[in-house]
């Protein structure tokens, strides 16, 4: 067996039986992704309608055509409506198997329209990636046994890859001294300005006060986060996954406390994909309900 096939076996566990708990959990997970997709699509559409008038930064497909033509005539709201309807049809497995691919395209479009103002947020990436994996899974593995396994395995692969690549971005961008605690001081001051501007007031919390009082402590905080990113790829191994994901969740709480950056969807999705929740469901159900069977 080649090395990449071993990774495939860890991600997809082909020799493990599909259980009712797994199918129920997958449908719950898919609902979670669908609800966030609808929420993002509408909130981005409404924001665009109210605030966007010029393209400051072209992201994704916006590099290839002028998205400012899509700011008006309620087009962002139409995209949100279409995304919601097609997403719901995809969720209930009504219609062709490429529906999620269209949903992904529309969500990408909505993102590049909304974030044409200069900001490059990453907190929605995991939801976008999940819709992409649902699209690929429903095209190549429409089988109800295989699709859940592929979708979750693919998401875990790219999540692990993303964290590890973030480690190397920092190593290349700054060098081994990236975790110098004074860098955290700069970021705390930067984020304090963001909060002050957003809320009109700002108070340092306990962790920020501690970090600002000691270079050693702030360096340790950065080093912990950085090394946790490095081991992100170890989530590909099913036995290590809960530990790696737990560390990543802890890291996100650390970022929230030290830099006031929230990753709600990111953390919620990590909680969902990082642990074998299906085992818990299997303890209380013996068969897959018919209505779930129809929708997987």
């Amino acid at each position: 067996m080649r090395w990449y096939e071993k990774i495939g076996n860890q991600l997809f566990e082909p020799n493990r039986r599909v259980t009712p708990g797994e199918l129920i959990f997958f449908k719950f997970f898919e609902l979670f992704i669908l609800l966030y997709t609808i929420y993002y699509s509408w909130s981005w559409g409404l924001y665009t309608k109210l605030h966007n008038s010029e393209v400051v930064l072209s992201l994704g497909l916006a590099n290839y055509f002028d998205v400012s033509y899509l700011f008006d005539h309620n087009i962002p709201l139409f995209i949100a409506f279409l995304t919601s309807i097609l997403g719901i049809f995809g969720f209930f497995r009504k219609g062709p198997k490429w529906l999620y691919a269209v949903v992904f395209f529309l969500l990408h479009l909505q993102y590049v329209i909304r974030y044409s103002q200069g900001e490059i947020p990453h907190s929605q990436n995991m939801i976008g990636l999940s819709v992409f994996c649902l699209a690929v899974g429903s095209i190549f593995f429409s089988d109800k046994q295989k699709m859940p396994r592929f979708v979750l395995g693919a998401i875990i692969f790219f999540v692990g890859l993303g964290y590890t690549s973030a480690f190397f971005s920092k190593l290349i961008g700054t060098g081994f001294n990236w975790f110098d605690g004074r860098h955290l001081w700069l970021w705390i001051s930067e984020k304090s300005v963001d909060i002050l501007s957003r809320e009109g007031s700002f108070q340092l919390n306990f962790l920020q006060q501690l970090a600002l009082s000691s270079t050693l402590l702030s360096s340790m905080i950065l080093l912990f986060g950085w090394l946790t990113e490095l081991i992100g790829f170890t989530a590909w191994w099913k036995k290590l996954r809960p530990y790696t994901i737990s560390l990543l969740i802890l890291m996100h709480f650390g970022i929230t406390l030290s830099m006031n950056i929230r990753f709600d969807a990111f953390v919620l999705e990590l909680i969902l994909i990082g642990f074998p929740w299906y085992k818990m469901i299997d303890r209380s159900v013996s068969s897959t309900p018919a209505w779930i069977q129809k929708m997987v």
Partner: protein
Amino acid sequence: MDNSFSKKGIKIIGVIFVLYAVLVASHKGEFWPFSIYPMFSQAGNPWTRAMVLDVTDLPDDQIWETHSLYNRFAEPVPLKEHGIDQIDFSNFISKTENWTPERREALRYMFGQNRLGSQRWMASKVRGQLVQEDSVIVEIKPFLLVTADTVRMNPTLDKSEYFNGEE
């Protein structure tokens, strides 16, 4: 299920991985939702953000002065209360290289044309940097004065602060 499913799955991931790599490599690390997650990759550099100060009641000869965050002469306008995304606003101010009349109008549109009334809002650049190896100083530079019908540039700043020479 058997190993053939796993093989097919990892091959598809391999194809997506190549697509991922090509897209992020050719689009400065970002092609949503694919990313190399470069945020915070360049540590230690000075940063520039933005905030809005309410200068409605201040005299004209005071509002254009650069000053420190801790001795600021006006209170920040809480952007959240006005439905404006702070990060969006901050990037709009710091990443715009040519403040053409259209771009200045776009800023007024972002604030909401009917919201200002008789108020005067100063969109300001805020810059932070490490000094003397052990402290951070934060400086506010008043940049654009936005009223209900005009957007004025800071007369004390050089034109190069507003136009990079390329259109």
